[in-house]
C-alpha cells in the first residue's frame, strides 16, 4: 500500500508548537509511506491540490492528513481525495491541533506526540477498506399516527409537498382534543372555526388516505422502508355507501344511554353515532357495547331507516398494510384521570377534590365543552348538576402536575394559560360571577401569553390565590373549597358553585405499547423520547420515526403545530432523494464463523440484528446466523466488542484498525 502523508501547519496554529517539517520527515520513514510533505494550510485550495497532485503522481492508495480535529475537516479531505480518485474512506486524520499543538507548549514534546499520532493514523489506514456510502431506496410516503391538530398539520404539510400520506386515527373522527375546545388562548379565536377547515382539507386531499377508527398493529422494516399493518376496526357501516345523512343516529332507540366522549360525558349519544356534527369523515359507527342489536339480536332500526343500505352488522375488523418511508407519531395526550382509585393506578390521585363524586367538580376539558357553542349547553355556562349558572367558580391549577407525591413531577405547561382563558370566558359570559384561581406559580412564557394572564387578572378581575386546595366537599348544593392563601398566610374557604380542575396532561395509556411497536424509547411517564433533547427534538432513535405534539411532552397548539411541521420537514428531507445515503460505518457479520449466540442482538439498541438462516443447495438448514439490517444499524460497535469470536465487526472501526493503532503505541 502506498500512503501519502500531509502535515498541515494550520497557519501557526499547529506550526507554532509542532515542528511540522520534522513530523513530515519522520513520517517519510514509516513503512508504507511513499510521500510526505507539510504545508501552511492543507485545507485551502492549494493545500488540497497538493494532496490531489500527490495522489495522481505517486499513485497513492491511502492518505493521512495531520491537521485539525476530524470533526472539523475530515469531510473536506475525504472529498478532496475522492476527487483525485481515492476512496474517501481511505483517508485518516491525525488530530495535531486540538489534541496536540493547542494543548502543549514544549515544542519537542508536542512534535514527538504529533509523530506518534501520525504513526497511529498511518498504521490504521493500512487496514482501511474502500467503502461505499450505503444507499437505501426510500418509499416516499408517510404514515401519520393520530389525527389531532399535530397529525393534521403534519399530514397536510407532507401532502401539500406532493407526497402521499396515510393518516391513522383511532377514533371515528379526526380532530383530536382541539376539536373539543371552545376558544383558544391567547387570541380567543374559536377552536373549531380554525380547525374544521383543516379537517375537511385533510379529507378532500388527493394525497391523503384517511383511515379513521383504525389503529397501528405492527411495524416492520426501517427508515425509508417501513411496512405498517393497520387494523381497521369494524364501523358496522359501509363507508362508501354512507352519505352522512344522520337519520340512523336520530332513529336509534337507545339514544340517551351512552355518554358522549366528545362532550367528556356531559351529554349522551346514540349507539350509532358520529362523535360531533363536524366529524371527518362524517360516517357513523356503531358502538357495539351498547347497541341493542349486538346485545339481543333484535332492533336493526338503523338498518331499516338507511336508504343506502350502508349498515352492515357483519362487518369485521380488517387489516391493511401500507408501505411508507417515514412515520410521524402524533398520538397526543389524555388528562390525568383523577377519579381513578389509587389501587388501579400507581398515582395516588386527588380523592379529596371529589372529582367523579360531585357532579360540579369537573376538569378542564369538560369546562371547554360547557363553554363551547357546540357543547351540551350551547355555550351557556351552566353547571352540570342543575343546569344553573354558577355565580362563584373555583379553578384549581396543577392537579397532578408538579406534584411528585400524588401525581407527576413535570409541569403540564398549558394549564396556566387555559385556566386564565377559562376564567376569562366565564367572566365574559357571567358578568356578575366571581372566579377564583388557585395556583402554585403562573407560567406564561410565550408570545402574548403573559399579557393574556394579566388581562384576566386586571381587566376581568379574576381572583388569583397562590396556594393549594386541601379539600372540597358539598354542602347545601355548594362546594366548600378549603385552601390556603400562602401569600397572605391565611386559610381560605370559598363556597363555590362549580370547581374546575386543571388536571395534568399525561401520555396516552397505549403509548408504551406503540413505542415498542415502533422501537422508539419513552420516558417513565410514557412520553416518547426524542433522539437528542437539543439538536434532534423531533427525531427518535429509530431513523425515519418522528414525533409531533403532545405525545412527546405537554405542549400547546402552536407548539404542536410547529413540531408537526418540523416532523413533516424531517420526512420531506428524507423524501428529497430517491436513495437514502448513509455513512457505511455499520456492523457486518462474518457468516462463516458466526455461531449464532445472538449476544449482538441483545446489546443492539436499534434492533438492527436479525436472524438469518443459511441453507445448503438442497434447502436444508445449515445454521442460523446474525444479520445486520443496514437501515437500522447506527454503528456504535457494541456488538463488535460483545461478540466473543468477533464474527460481527464494525466496518470503519474494526479490530484490525484499532489493533493496528494500539500496536503503533509500542513505538511511542
Amino acid at each position: 500500500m502506498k500512503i501519502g502523508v500531509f502535515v498541515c501547519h494550520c497557519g501557526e496554529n499547529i506550526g507554532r508548537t509542532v515542528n511540522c517539517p520534522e513530523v513530515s520527515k519522520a513520517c517519510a520513514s514509516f513503512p508504507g509511506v511513499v510521500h510526505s510533505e507539510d504545508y501552511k494550510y492543507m485545507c485551502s485550495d492549494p493545500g488540497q491540490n497538493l494532496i490531489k497532485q500527490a495522489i495522481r503522481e505517486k499513485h497513492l492508495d491511502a492518505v493521512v492528513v495531520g491537521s485539525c480535529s476530524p470533526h472539523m475537516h475530515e469531510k473536506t479531505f475525504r472529498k478532496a481525495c475522492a476527487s483525485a480518485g481515492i476512496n474517501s474512506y481511505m483517508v485518516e486524520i491525525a488530530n495535531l491541533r486540538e489534541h496536540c499543538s493547542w494543548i502543549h507548549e514544549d515544542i519537542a514534546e508536542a512534535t514527538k506526540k504529533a509523530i506518534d499520532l501520525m504513526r497511529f493514523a498511518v498504521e490504521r489506514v493500512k487496514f482501511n477498506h474502500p467503502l461505499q456510502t450505503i444507499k437505501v431506496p426510500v418509499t416516499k410516503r408517510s404514515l401519520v399516527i393520530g389525527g389531532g391538530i399535530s397529525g393534521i398539520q403534519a399530514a397536510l404539510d407532507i401532502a401539500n409537498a406532493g407526497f402521499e400520506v396515510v393518516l391513522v386515527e383511532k377514533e371515528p373522527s379526526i380532530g383530536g382534543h382541539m376539536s373539543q375546545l371552545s376558544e383558544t388562548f391567547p387570541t380567543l379565536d374559536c377552536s373549531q372555526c380554525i380547525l374544521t377547515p383543516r379537517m375537511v382539507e385533510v379529507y378532500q386531499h388527493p394525497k391523503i388516505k384517511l383511515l379513521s377508527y383504525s389503529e397501528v398493529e405492527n411495524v416492520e422494516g426501517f427508515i425509508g422502508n417501513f411496512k405498517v399493518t393497520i387494523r381497521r376496526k369494524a364501523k358496522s357501516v359501509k363507508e362508501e355507501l354512507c352519505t352522512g345523512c344522520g337519520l340512523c343516529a336520530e332513529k336509534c332507540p337507545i339514544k340517551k344511554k351512552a355518554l358522549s366522549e366528545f362532550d367528556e360525558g356531559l351529554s349522551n349519544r346514540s349507539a350509532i353515532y358520529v362523535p360531533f356534527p363536524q366529524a371527518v369523515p362524517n360516517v357513523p359507527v356503531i358502538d357495539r357495547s351498547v347497541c341493542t342489536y349486538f346485545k339481543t339480536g333484535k332492533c336493526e332500526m338503523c338498518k331499516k331507516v338507511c336508504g343506502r343500505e350502508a349498515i352492515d352488522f357483519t362487518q369485521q375488523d380488517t387489516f391493511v398494510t401500507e408501505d411508507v418511508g417515514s412515520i410521524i407519531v402524533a398520538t397526543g395526550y389524555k388528562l390525568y384521570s383523577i377519579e381513578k382509585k389509587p389501587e388501579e393506578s400507581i398515582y395516588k390521585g386527588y380523592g379529596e377534590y371529589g372529582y367523579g363524586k360531585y357532579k360540579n367538580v369537573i376538569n378542564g376539558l369538560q369546562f371547554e365543552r360547557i363553554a363551547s357553542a357546540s357543547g351540551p349547553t350551547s355555550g351557556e355556562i351552566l353547571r352540570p348538576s342543575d343546569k344553573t349558572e354558577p355565580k362563584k367558580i373555583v379553578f384549581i391549577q396543577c392537579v397532578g402536575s408538579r406534584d411528585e407525591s400524588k401525581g407527576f413531577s413535570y409541569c403540564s405547561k398549558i394549564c396556566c394559560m387555559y385556566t386564565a382563558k377559562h376564567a376569562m370566558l366565564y367572566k365574559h359570559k357571567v358578568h356578575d360571577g366571581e372566579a377564583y384561581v388557585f395556583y402554585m406559580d403562573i407560567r406564561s412564557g410565550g408570545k402574548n401569553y403573559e399579557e393574556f394572564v394579566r388581562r384576566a387578572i386586571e381587566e376581568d378581575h379574576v381572583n388569583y390565590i397562590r396556594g393549594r386546595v386541601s379539600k372540597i366537599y358539598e354542602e347545601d348544593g355548594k362546594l366548600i373549597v378549603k385552601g390556603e392563601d400562602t401569600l397572605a398566610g391565611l386559610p381560605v374557604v370559598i363556597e363555590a358553585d362549580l370547581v374546575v380542575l386543571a388536571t395534568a396532561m399525561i401520555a396516552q395509556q397505549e403509548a408504551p405499547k406503540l413505542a415498542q411497536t415502533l422501537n422508539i424509547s419513552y420516558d417513565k411517564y410514557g412520553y416518547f423520547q426524542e433522539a437528542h433533547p437539543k439538536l434532534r427534538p423531533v427525531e427518535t432513535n429509530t431513523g425515519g420515526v418522528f414525533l409531533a405534539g403532545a405525545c412527546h411532552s405537554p405542549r400547546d397548539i402552536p407548539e404542536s403545530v410547529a413540531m408537526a411541521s418540523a416532523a413533516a420537514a424531517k420526512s420531506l428531507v428524507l423524501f428529497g432523494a430517491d436513495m437514502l445515503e448513509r455513512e457505511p460505518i455499520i456492523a457486518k457479520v462474518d457468516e462463516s464463523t458466526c455461531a449464532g449466540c445472538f449476544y449482538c442482538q441483545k446489546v443492539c439498541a436499534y434492533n438492527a440484528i436479525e436472524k438469518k438462516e443459511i441453507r445448503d443447495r438442497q434447502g436444508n438448514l445449515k445454521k442460523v446466523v446474525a444479520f445486520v439490517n443496514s437501515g437500522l444499524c447506527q454503528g456504535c460497535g457494541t456488538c463488535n466488542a460483545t461478540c466473543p469470536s468477533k464474527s460481527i465487526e464494525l466496518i470503519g472501526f474494526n479490530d484490525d484498525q484499532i489493533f493496528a493503532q494500539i500496536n503503533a503505541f509500542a513505538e511511542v
Partner: protein
Amino acid sequence: MEEKFEPKIAAFVCNWCTYTGADLAGTSRLKQEANARLIRVPCTGRIDPVFIIKAFENGADGVLISGCHPGDCHYNAGNFHARRRWILFKNLLDFIGIDSSRLYFSWVSASEGKKWVDIVDGVIDAVRIKGPFKQYKKMNKEIEIPVAVEEGVSVK
C-alpha cells in the same frame, strides 16, 4: 544520571463525548501534559477489554477509558454495556494480579474540556508515581529481538 520516567498513557475515548470534550479542551487552549495518546472509537460500547490487554502489551503504563455520562450515550446504552464489562474485567485483572489501578475510567462529556484536562493530568501524575509497568513489559521478552543479536540481514 537516570532518565526521568515519563509514563505512556493509551486513552480510548468515544467519538461523541470525550473526543469532542478533548477537542473543546484544545479549542479552549487548556494546557495538559503530553503523555496521553488518544484512540478514537465510536462508543465506549465498542471497547473490547482485549484493547486494554493489547495496550499494556505494547508498552502502555496506564490506560484511560472515557465516554459519555450514563444516560447521555449517543447510541442510547453503549456505555451501560461497557460499564458492566469493565466491572467484570477489572475484577479479573485484580484476581490475576495485574495492576488494575493502572486502568482508569471516566465519563467526560463534550462540554467538559476542563474535566478532561484534569483527568488526563491526574492519570499521568498517578502513573508517573507508579513507575513503568514492568510486570507487563517483562512478558514481551520472548518476542523481542534478543540483545545479543547484533546485526541482521537486510532484505528489500
